[in-house]
């Protein structure tokens, strides 16, 4: 929290100032438009980054704000991806309604599993999320008739966005569409974080023991945020299906769950932009180093994790804000 001359503010104005748009945020969102002109050949990658950033944002709500460590968050991403794919196959190819379907199904599954999740903490919680994620992947793998199993879902075709913009080979439409959805969902997430509910989530993260003593039902809060996070992850999964026109079993994989945790922690958990920054850095690095064999890529991921935990506890954004504070003081 910034320490600007706050003593003269009324409490309400102080809280209002905390939630105000900062110039750097506007710069950030303006910069997301640059790839259209600066990197027109990388728009597919940019679209992937936007989708992954949205996925990381959804994890941030439960991990960064409510302190729930999940190693199975890809479950909701995958549900969204398959729902959007099946929707285009069996209903129609209009993209926005497909996203709504993806969000709805992921939300329903998220709400149902939230009753399980909210009962646990610590290692048991990690294992339950991991176990449910693995179960879902095995189930999708064996339901070959529906999902295509390990061959992937065939026959996905998506209509042009708004009937005007066809999904092209260069990813122009894909990036524009993903970015627009990301921005809208981000606005919602930003409002959630700045709401009384967002404050309650931070309360859970800071001290879950104290919550009942102020009359709070932490489990109800956790169920709600878990459902919201599942909906957002489902939208991200749906976007991936619609922009790539395929669904691979990989959308449900443990690696996807683990990668998104890494991205979020790298960017800075518990900060709205942590997931977006982390996803950007991670995806660009992976694209640049794609020549390296995967096992060596994971060496650097491992080394990165060790460094982040031991030297950079709040990720890139945490490190930056510490630098800025030090610079201001001197």
């Amino acid at each position, binding site marked *: 929290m910034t320490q600007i001359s706050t003593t003269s503010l009324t409490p309400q104005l102080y809280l209002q100032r905390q939630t105000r748009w900062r110039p750097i945020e506007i710069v950030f969102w303006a910069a997301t438009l640059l790839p259209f002109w600066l990197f027109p050949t990388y728009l597919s990658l940019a679209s992937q980054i936007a989708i992954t950033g949205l996925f990381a944002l959804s994890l941030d709500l439960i991990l960064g704000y409510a302190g729930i460590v999940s190693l199975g968050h890809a479950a909701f991403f995958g549900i969204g991806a398959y729902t959007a794919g099946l929707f285009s196959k069996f209903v129609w190819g209009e993209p926005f309604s497909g996203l709504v379907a993806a969000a709805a199904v992921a939300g329903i599954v998220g709400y149902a599993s939230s009753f399980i999740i909210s009962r646990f903490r610590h*290692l048991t919680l990690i294992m339950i999320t991991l176990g449910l994620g693995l179960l879902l992947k095995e189930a999708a793998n064996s339901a070959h008739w529906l999902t295509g199993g390990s061959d992937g879902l065939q026959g996905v075709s998506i209509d042009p966005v708004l009937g005007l913009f066809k999904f092209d080979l260069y990813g122009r439409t894909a990036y524009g569409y993903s970015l627009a959805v990301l921005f809208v969902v981000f606005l919602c997430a930003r409002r959630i974080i700045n709401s009384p509910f967002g404050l309650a989530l931070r309360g859970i993260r800071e001290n879950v023991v104290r919550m009942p003593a102020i009359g709070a039902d932490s489990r109800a809060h956790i169920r709600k945020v878990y459902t919201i996070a599942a909906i957002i992850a489902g939208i991200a999964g749906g976007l991936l299906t619609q922009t790539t026109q395929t669904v691979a079993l990989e959308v449900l994989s443990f690696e996807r769950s683990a990668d998104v945790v890494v991205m979020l922690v790298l960017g800075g958990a518990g900060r709205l932009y942590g997931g977006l920054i982390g996803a950007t850095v991670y995806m660009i690095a992976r694209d640049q180093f794609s020549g390296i064999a995967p096992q060596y890529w994971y060496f650097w991921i491992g080394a990165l994790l060790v460094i982040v935990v031991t030297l950079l506890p709040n990720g890139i954004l945490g490190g930056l804000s510490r630098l800025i504070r030090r610079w201001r003081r001197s």
Partner: protein
Amino acid sequence: MLPPVFGVLFDGIAYGMLLFVLSVGMSVTLGLMNFVNLAHCAFAMLGAYVTVVLMKDFHWNFFVTLPMAFAVSALVSVAVERVLYRRLYRASDLDQVLLTIGLAFMSVAIAAWFFGTTQQPISVPSYLRGSISLLGLDLGVYRMFLIAVGIAVTVLLVLTLEHTRFGAQVRAAVDNQRMARGLGIDVDRTFAVTFALGSGLAGLGGALAIEIVGLDPQFALIYLVYVLIIVSVGGLGSIAGSFAAACLIGVSDIAGKYYVPQLGSFLIYLVMVAVLMWRPAGLFGRR
């Protein structure tokens, strides 16, 4: 004549014993320090590669390599504990998970760098190969050996914990760490020794596993999932719990792959989720 279900049971229990040796160390360190060590199977993999190198390059006997697998894993784990883990005992779950999974990722890459990504077969002594026919069942000799090792390790652990001074200190520390510190027990040292023993056992387990499941750099991650399942199903810090959970998961896994192969590992995940829903602290857990 016994029906084939007993053969499946036998294989499952042998596999369970292997998983028990792999996982019991992690269970105790988790119960003792609440430290989530996802690099546990990296130590197991280290033990396995020690055995491979000693047998292939130095032509040691399989049995002689086993104590070395134990010792090298134990020593390396102590070094890692001193340098990295020590500062994270009071850190959040997430930090522990991230640091140790980072180490596990690095171990996979390092193993691939030195040994390549191919399988590393070893040839165990001829008298451990083959099988014995008993009441119409073919019982693998190596699997009988595994069961014997599993039982021996269990007995040794129980005797150590119940009848030695060190064991009493470990039990006190698992029970109530603050009280144990108050009684003058050096919990940090107790933990370091337990951690080394646990990692050593993992190294031994890794060496024993080569013959059954093979060895490649992914070992550190694939068996991590099994170990985590056993630890959480059995209950943290409980040897009896780990033993029971290892048998349960071993039998479930073999039975699942034998009777419903198309489901893959579905069955063990299902068993885990079911047990944890019923008893969140695990079968023998108290917290």
